[in-house]
């Protein structure tokens, strides 16, 4: 047949299926657009901007029983989740699964949404404050599901946790949905740095709504989320409060006990056998973990050792080492402070990565599996080296799984830092109240009063002894603590399960039960 360009085209060619002759009337936008400049900006007929949140929600086709998601890069300064949930509730949509990457104090209004049936159940990495208490005290019928960051990414990517609509706040976005956690063209008022968790949702959700308070000109580069993954853009006054988003600067601790633990952790790294040129590391944002970086810096300078990359949540301390040339590259799944946010903007080897790239166990080359050393904190650890970072000593949920079990499993040496005694509680128990990270993936416990090595890691033990580090068995350390503060009374639980802890592969590693009250 004669196609739209006037050429004779067969309707079938042997060996090739699906021949479609060119049609000049095709409406895929190939027509020359002399008004393109305007279209690229804010032409409502062409771009993805929706007038209101309500219209965006309608456009996604959200209905009862679906799954929605949010990211937690705005931490305690997040305005998005409550804003969207209020709108959804107003529209009468119910019975939703809320699969947020994490939840915090600011999300207390969710208590009402769960109570009223707008939300049927929640999947998250962590929760704190009123919502966490509401679960712990057994107010809700369906338990909260706790995922690790890598586990959540895996579940979403594999279809185990299919997201119908992702509502993603973006500190900068253009009219077509190119979105980022900072802006290269202005001072994004809600800048949060890396959008690592949101990137997974954007990639896999059926519908993606970007919500921004900083609409910038097209194309918004660099972007974390490309326009190809975005369906709608909603512009609002504010998406977050930067005071809650970043803490300003994560300062080095002056607490002498944390400094002592940090120094011990740096000694452990030095003696681990992995402290060689090109090693890689991840340190958390807790006081002792941050300070470890400082002591490690001195050791790196003294031994002329440079790290190839630092992973995870990026902090000022890590950025400082990067800019000093001691860490070559930064792989940033979430930026913890303003320095990290700024670094992401200006340092070319500061790369934002998605949670899937960071830690998904089904991604064989994920960055967590390339880690040599990780320093992690713990609320409790037990004689089998199992670690709890989610429930407090009263049994109430007050933390997050985060990347704890992902990096412990991935790193060649996983180091847990904790004070031997916290307040009046020993950090080492016979059995932790909730297992987040299984003991076989934990290698060393570093406390202020000595270190303990997992018996599975005899190779490490030899090095530590040679370096004359204060090595004890974990039982000996426990004994040291209990001599002073005794063994805590076990927490009293009801039978009702209020939380399900999933390991990174999706299997259930533990459950949290309702805390018995009125004892």
């Amino acid at each position: 047949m004669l196609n739209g360009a006037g050429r004779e085209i067969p309707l079938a060619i042997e060996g090739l299926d699906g021949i479609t002759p060119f049609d000049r009337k095709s409406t895929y936008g190939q027509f020359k657009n002399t008004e393109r400049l305007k279209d690229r900006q804010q032409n409502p007929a062409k771009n993805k901007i929706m007038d209101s949140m309500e219209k965006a929600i309608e456009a996604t086709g959200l209905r009862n029983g679906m799954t929605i998601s949010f990211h937690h890069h705005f931490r305690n300064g997040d305005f998005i989740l409550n804003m969207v949930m209020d709108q959804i509730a107003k529209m009468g949509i119910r019975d939703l699964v809320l699969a947020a990457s994490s939840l915090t104090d600011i999300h207390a209004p969710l208590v009402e949404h769960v109570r009223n049936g707008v939300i049927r159940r929640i999947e998250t990495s962590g929760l704190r404050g009123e919502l966490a208490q509401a679960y712990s005290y057994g107010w809700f019928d369906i338990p909260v599901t706790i995922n690790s960051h890598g586990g959540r990414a895996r579940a979403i990517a594999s279809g185990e946790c299919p997201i119908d609509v992702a509502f993603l706040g973006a500190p900068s976005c253009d009219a077509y949905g190119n979105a980022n956690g900072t802006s290269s063209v202005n001072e994004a008022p809600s800048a949060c740095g890396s959008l690592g968790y949101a990137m997974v949702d954007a990639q896999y959700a059926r519908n993606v709504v970007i919500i921004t308070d900083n609409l910038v000109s097209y194309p918004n580069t660099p972007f974390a989320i490309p326009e190809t993954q975005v369906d709608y853009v909603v512009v609002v006054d504010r998406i977050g409060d930067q005071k809650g988003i970043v803490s300003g600067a994560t300062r080095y601790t002056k607490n002498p006990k944390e400094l002592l633990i940090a120094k011990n952790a740096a000694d452990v790294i030095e003696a681990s056998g992995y402290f060689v040129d090109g090693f890689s590391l991840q340190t958390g944002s807790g006081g002792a973990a941050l300070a470890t970086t400082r002591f490690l810096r001195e050791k790196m300078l003294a031994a002329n050792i440079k790290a190839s990359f630092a992973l995870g949540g990026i902090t000022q301390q890590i950025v400082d080492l990067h800019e000093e040339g001691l860490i070559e590259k930064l792989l940033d799944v979430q930026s913890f402070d303003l320095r990290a946010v700024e670094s992401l903007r200006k340092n070319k080897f500061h790369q934002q990565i998605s949670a899937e790239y960071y830690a998904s166990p089904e991604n064989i080359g994920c960055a967590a599996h390339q880690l040599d050393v990780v320093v992690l904190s713990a609320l409790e650890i037990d004689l089998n080296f199992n670690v709890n970072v989610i429930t407090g000593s009263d049994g109430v949920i007050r933390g997050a799984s985060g990347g704890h079990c992902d990096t412990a499993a991935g790193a060649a040496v996983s180091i847990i830092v904790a004070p031997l005694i916290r307040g009046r509680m020993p950090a080492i128990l016979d059995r932790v109240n909730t297992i987040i990270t299984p003991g076989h993936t934990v290698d060393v416990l570093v406390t202020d009063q000595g270190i303990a090595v997992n018996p599975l890691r005899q190779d490490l033990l030899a090095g530590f002894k040679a370096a004359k580090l204060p090595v004890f068995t974990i039982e000996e350390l426990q004994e040291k603590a209990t001599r002073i503060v005794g063994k805590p009374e076990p927490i009293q639980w009801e039978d009702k399960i209020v939380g399900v802890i999933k390991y990174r592969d999706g299997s259930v590693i533990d459950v949290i039960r309702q805390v018995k009250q009125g004892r």
Partner: protein
Amino acid sequence: MQKLRRTMLYVPGNNPGMIRDAHIYGADSIMIDLEDSVSLYEKDAARLLVYQALKTFDFGGIEVLVRVNPLNTPYGRDDFEAIVRAQPTAIRLPKTETADDVIEADELITEIEQKIGMEHGTIKLFAAVESGKGALNAAQIAVASKRLIGIAIGAEDFVTDLKTTRSPEGIELLTARSLILFAARAAGIAAVDTVYSDVNNEEGFASEVKLIKQLGFDGKSIINPRQIEIVNRIYTPTEAEIKKSKRIIEASLEAEAKGSGVISLDGKMIDRPIVERARRILDLAEAAKINVE
């Protein structure tokens, strides 16, 4: 090895958490305070707490002192009664002005030791001089009791007594520091310098530590564990000092083995003070965990 007292860490006697953790930071001695850091309303509670802590906690073999209230206050005697029974290494006497202050404390301790059947002399004393009068009497104070293991200067009260303030250079303390140091050396006991209260001024602190080390002090009272490393670093001998000291000691041992009273090294005579200094350098090196073998 002689007992090192590079760092004597102050711990308020009314803070159970700090008392519990005091021994973990690597100070040579810890000094639990019942005096200035405890308000009048808490004296009883703190005394009881410190008593129980001393009886209960394992301080890991570190020397523990307790600073009591002066005997001329309503709390002093009760402090002695409780603390002697709890058996710290020593009681630190604040505001010591005369030899009689030490003798009075010695007698009281003797009395309590006898009462409870504790071996005489178990509890040692450490005197703190905090006034012009005390500084002038330092020589008598230092020899007033066999229990006395050291003498310290407390600068805050001292400068107030002198009607001045502390300067970064410490010129106002120079005479008192020297008097106390001479007294200690004459008596063969330790000399410990005063606290430096601006814990965030690491540079100022380090410069003061260098000064007191040069003067000859054994060490310094400190108020924050973060200061320990700075003191230890300054007191740690250099590699060259260690090497030389080892050779001096070896030469002295060799001379001793030969029955010779004359020690020579590299063709030069070595006399006794040089050997003593070498020994102290090796002690300090060992305390800094430097392998001197």
